[in-house]
């Protein structure tokens, strides 16, 4: 049995709790226990981080009139897809007039996440 511990900084909120994760590499879900979290979200974060890390992408999308509009994925996507997601967003041509929450791209790279506007424009 291979038991190890690992320290992570929780990124769910600005508190940035230091999490101590105990892992057993023989198990399918290797996370045996998590300590140090200020709230339950820390446990979910540690579990995801040790199995399949995910991130919310925040960026800007080009608009038809040559400007940009801030946007984000409406849920976390696999971390390894960030650069591919950037390519997809940078080829968009978003309307000049958008409202917060408008969907600019559906089902980004088959992840189920949408790209939504995060600012009002025009």
């Amino acid at each position, binding site marked *: 049995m291979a038991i190890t511990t690992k320290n992570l900084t929780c990124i769910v909120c600005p508190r940035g709790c230091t999490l101590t994760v105990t892992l057993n590499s023989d198990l399918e879900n290797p996370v045996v226990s998590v300590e140090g979290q200020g709230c339950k979200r820390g446990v979910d974060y540690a579990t995801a981080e040790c199995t399949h890390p995910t991130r919310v992408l925040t960026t*800007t999308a080009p608009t038809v009139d040559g400007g940009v509009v*801030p946007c984000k994925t409406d849920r976390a996507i696999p971390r390894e897809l960030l650069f591919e997601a950037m390519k997809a967003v940078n080829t968009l041509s978003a309307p000049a007039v958008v409202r917060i929450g408008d969907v600019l791209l559906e089902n980004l790279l088959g992840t189920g996440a949408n790209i939504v506007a*995060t*600012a009002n424009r025009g």
Partner: protein
Amino acid sequence: MQNYVDKTAPYTALVVIGGGPAGMAAAVAAYDDGVRDMVILERDLNAGGILRQCIHNGFGLHRFGEELTGPEYADRYHKMVVERGIAIKTGATVLDVTPSDEEGVAAYVTAISEAEGMFTLRAGAVVLAMGCRERSKGALNIAGTRPAGIYSAGTAQRFVNMEGYMPGRKVVILGSGDIGLIMARRMTLEGAEVKAVCELMPYSGGLARNITQCLDDFGIPLMLSHTVTQIHGKERLTGVTVSKVDEKRRPIPGSEIYFECDTLLLSVGLIPENELTRGANIGMDGITGGATVDQYRQTSLKGVFACGNVLHVHDLVDYVSEEAALAGSSAAAHLRGELTEGRTITLKTDGKVRYTVPQAVTVTENTADVTVYFRPSDIYRDVTVTVREGGVDGNVISKKKRIKVAPGEMETITIKAADLNATTADTLLVSIEESAKKGGNA
């Protein structure tokens, strides 16, 4: 210094200077406490302040229970302002605040806008919410040329996020405050190569989560105790020399590393924007760069309150909103004549606590518990934060254990109303006490 005293100017009960998150939250709180005759004056063409360019997420978990980006957070407050019908004048820059000797008027506020030209308001109360600006690169003494390609991190943030323009492709960042860390990720995602983030201090001034998600995620090295010692290039930046520094922050000869780059971002700190405050002769705190205030966020000028980054630099907008709501409610209480004079207790700090806000407490029969915000000067582990009456040997009236405190993260300690009423001391000492066993400043 020109004074703009105009006793014939129109009266406005509350004038809020700045339409960022602090100004909007203060106005909303004042409205909810009954103030109707008020105006927010905002220099920019849009309300929202610095949040408009902070397109990353992490705002509002505390305040709204969900993770928002900067523009979304600003929009929440903007909606509250609009719903209440609070007047907001954009494109209106305040030029001067002059104390008044008229009964019921705290100050004369003079502004200029394209629509109205120059105008003065006789303000019953004023909330200062002008935010902060970045320390300029002129303040830095780096040897070498001054080619194009050197920007403050906030300027680069505005270029990339609002104008869709990338300032460069090969980047070195000096300073590991949050703006620098956020920009390291942002430029990487947009295809730039961020070679290193250099930090003069042995620790980062940014949030731990930003080191994880902005640097570690992309394998960007954080070089602690390092600084840029030479700038290279004639017209355009071609590279920088980075050196390790000793404990006294002096570059160590022989430790130089050369990085080829076309862009250097400086993220070397923010300073509260207090020209107006100084112009009004309001008492200032040399360490925060903001006004000195009591627990109501009232400055030395009666009826003038301050909140947000103009008071002290906050890393979390949630705290800005909280503080601003307090300032707005206090302004409303002042207008109702309820902020009575009382006994003043000054808060002092040991060297380990760098500063506190508030810097003083006004004790009256209505005094409530007081939350004191503070920043440590360094990283300390296994400490007890104490509030003592008088000095170091004084009686402890509040204490709190912390596993770790760091300059990048604001801390709080609460003093109970009963203790404030009971004490006869005219100063309280806020300190960080290390336990007997050696904790060390790792």
